[in-house]
């Protein structure tokens, strides 16, 4: 039953359009990243990088190497858009993009994670077998129909993104305190049309609740054809407004582009014939007449294997956002402890959910002389790295290890590193994030519970002891 549902032939047009839109958005994103000088700022200039646990071996390639990576990324995304050498370019793009993302978690963004996943999923589907340069080169590749799963897997992935982003907002901070929007919206009083409403608490409550309901339900309304057009307008409106308010880069166009996959195959067929007619007028390609070719259905002997792989992928997608509950004190409705210690926070579609900022002062002590110095973080980190490190315990630990190694090589004997880190969360007065007496040089990174992270509700803890 399930198999016949998943393998039912459907028209390939939505998949081809998805490939085109994704390739285009990634091309824009790559060029934008380059023009803003971020290749230099984020991957060439910094003297240290915050690695992901288990991926410490992923290192930047130096200036020439990094620019080559981005050139290759731009070229492969362009090829994905054109459907040229698709199998190779989609795999290459996935590897290059994920490589860059793994270099430094200071720049972690949920939508980059989404791009990596989408790029991976695109390597598994025949998105180039319709309206592409590949079929111009090899007409035999062309198919008219594909098994349903090749399209629905993107819908499911999008549903996961929105749904988990939505239920992550069902917590006391977001719904009852309207935090962090009560802080963030206030700064948006210069927006055209709606700026005047931003300083009011009521606006923050309205945006908080509307955002939660939007995220939880939008995929349902996009899937239902009665509400689809209105729901898509809501998508455009929602992402345009958030894009104007917050520095979230290409995220709005990624989502506005990706959600077009929910439109019907007729819509996509019409869109493609529109693009085709424009192209025909511009380019002498009129010899191509797709109608003369037979309507084939895509088949692959790898299908059972790919479906199994997808089952594993989606199972992980459903489980990862819940892993934070495995750590002591973390709870869903009252999120303070969890937002505070961030154990199990990433890769869970927790998008713009909490306002945190910290000031981290590191002390390095010579074990022989007992002399203790104060580190100037800006000497080693760029502003983004310093900002992100200052409130995320795993990054604080990694920086401490970096300082240990650096000063050991610069004449400090067996350096001990401790840090005084004051963090403000959702506008509360700053308090100590980690135990300032612990020698971080001796603590280990890992998935275990880190006892040197101080609990958020300290009074409660000491009262219960």
């Amino acid at each position, binding site marked *: 039953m399930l198999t016949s549902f998943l393998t039912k032939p459907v028209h390939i047009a939505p998949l081809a359009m998805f490939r085109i839109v994704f390739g285009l958005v990634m091309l824009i994103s790559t060029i934008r990243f380059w023009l*803003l000088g*971020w290749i230099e*700022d984020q991957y060439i200039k910094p003297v240290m990088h915050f690695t992901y646990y288990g991926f410490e071996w992923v290192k930047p390639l130096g200036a020439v190497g990094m620019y080559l990576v981005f050139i290759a990324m731009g070229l492969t995304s362009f090829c994905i858009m054109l459907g040229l050498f698709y199998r190779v370019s989609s795999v290459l793009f996935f590897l290059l993009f994920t490589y860059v993302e793994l270099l430094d978690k200071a*720049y972690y*963004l*949920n939508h980059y994670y989404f791009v990596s996943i989408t790029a991976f999923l695109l390597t598994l589907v025949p998105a180039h077998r319709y309206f592409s340069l590949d079929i111009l080169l090899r007409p035999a590749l062309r198919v008219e129909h594909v098994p349903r799963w090749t399209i629905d897997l993107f819908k499911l992935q999008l549903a996961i993104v929105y749904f988990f982003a939505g239920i992550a907002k069902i917590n006391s901070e977001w*719904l*009852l305190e*309207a935090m962090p929007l*009560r*802080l963030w919206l*206030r*700064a*948006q009083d*210069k927006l055209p049309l709606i700026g005047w409403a931003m*300083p*009011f*608490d*009521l606006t923050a*409550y*309205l945006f*908080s*609740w*509307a955002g939660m*309901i939007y995220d939880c*339900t939008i995929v349902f*309304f996009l899937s239902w054809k*009665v*509400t689809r057009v209105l729901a898509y307008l809501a998508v455009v409106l929602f992402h345009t407004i958030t894009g104007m308010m917050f*520095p*979230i*880069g290409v*995220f709005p166009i990624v989502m506005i582009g990706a959600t077009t996959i929910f439109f019907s195959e007729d819509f996509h067929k019409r869109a493609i014939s529109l693009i085709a007619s424009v192209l025909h007028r511009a380019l002498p390609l009129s010899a191509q007449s797709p109608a003369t070719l037979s309507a084939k259905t895509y088949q692959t002997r790898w299908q059972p294997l790919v479906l199994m792989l997808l089952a594993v992928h989606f199972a992980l997608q459903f489980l990862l956002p819940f892993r934070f509950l495995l750590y002591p004190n973390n709870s869903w409705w009252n999120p303070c402890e969890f937002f505070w210690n961030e154990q199990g926070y990433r890769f869970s579609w927790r*998008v713009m959910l909490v*306002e945190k*900022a910290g*000031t981290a*002062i590191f*002390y*390095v002590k010579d074990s022989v002389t007992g002399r203790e*110095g*104060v*580190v*100037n973080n800006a000497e080693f980190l*760029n*502003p*983004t790295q310093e*900002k992100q490190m*200052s*409130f995320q315990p795993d990054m604080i630990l990694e920086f401490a290890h970096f*300082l240990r190694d650096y*000063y050991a090589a610069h*004449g*400090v004997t067996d350096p001990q590193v401790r840090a005084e880190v*004051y963090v*403000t969360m959702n*506008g*509360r*007065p*700053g308090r100590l994030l980690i135990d300032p007496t612990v020698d971080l040089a001796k603590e280990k990174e890992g998935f275990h519970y880190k006892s040197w992270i101080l609990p958020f509700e300290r009074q409660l803890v000491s009262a219960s002891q």
Partner: protein
Amino acid sequence: MMRTALLLRRLSANPLWSLVLTTTAIATAATFAVSCNNGTTEGSTDSFDRRSMLRNIAENFIIPSYSELQSKVNAMQAAVNAFTASPSEAALRAAQQAWEEAYTAWQYACTFDFGPATTSTGTLFQKIGVFPTNAARIEERIQQRNFSTDDFSRDTRGFNAVEYLLFSDSTLAQIISRFSNPDRRQYLQAIVADIKANVDATANAWQRYRAEFITNDGTSVGSSTSMLFNEFVKSFEHIKNFKVGLPAGKRPGQTRPEPQKVEAFYSGKSVKFIREHLQAIEMIYLGMHRRTGIDDLGFDDYLRSVPNGAALVISTLAQLELVKQRMNALPDAPLSQTIVSNFAVVDAFHTELQRHTRFFKSEMASLLSLTITFSSGDGD
């Protein structure tokens, strides 16, 4: 009437619209529920007029600071020229005095190291504010008759290099005798002219930039508020890290204090300049005019308009009081001597500066939703 009713019925039949209506209703209810039983957050709804704050900062801080700096630098140049034309103890004293006044004026302008203060060759601070100065290099350049001010040897120029030339010997007579060398006179004149050229350029550019500064009143990256805030924090940290931390030997790897690295080492006036600099910072925070004591719009007023902001202002001012207490406990001697003779009192001052950082840096930025810098990348 009929039509409106029909339209309403159609709208409410549409799931998305009923969703919007429900959301509005729930959110309104939630707001009332929360505002009724939650006393911990102030339900402030007053918006803050950032443009007025920026106007105050531009017209009562930045522009006057630069024009005062400009006139004090002119006076310094006149005094230095008089001294080099006919060196005498009186002329030297006058030049020293003029330097001190100009460098004092600099403490009130150095925080505004953005906008017109930045050019392709660096910021005004990098061009004229660098310390410790490199005495050996200066002597070398005098010997080589190298009077160029275009290279990147910035520790051979600026206010602290002038200070070295005017103060570095123990008696006035010794200093004067060294200036019998015409190359030394020319070097001094060249670096003073360089300070003047840079200050003039920035002050004039500010006159043209002023209107843009005031109207660029958003909060995103590149807005006036965000640039002002960033340089404000940087300036505060400069006191902590370089004016106190570095000579006190506070950097990891320093094996002892390095008192010769204080600002204004040769004149022995480091504490005075730290005091002026810190006062400049406090006045910007409060939006308070230095001459008249009028308390106009500043960061403190801005903070009071946001949730939890009033509490932050109270704790910030309390900590600033501690910082000033420790600063006032410094003896009336050159800082370089105090570091050697009474290290504990310098250390205590540094500790309070350190404790103060978070109030200015992370907590203020967080409550005001200010982004750090241009290269800070995207958020999500």
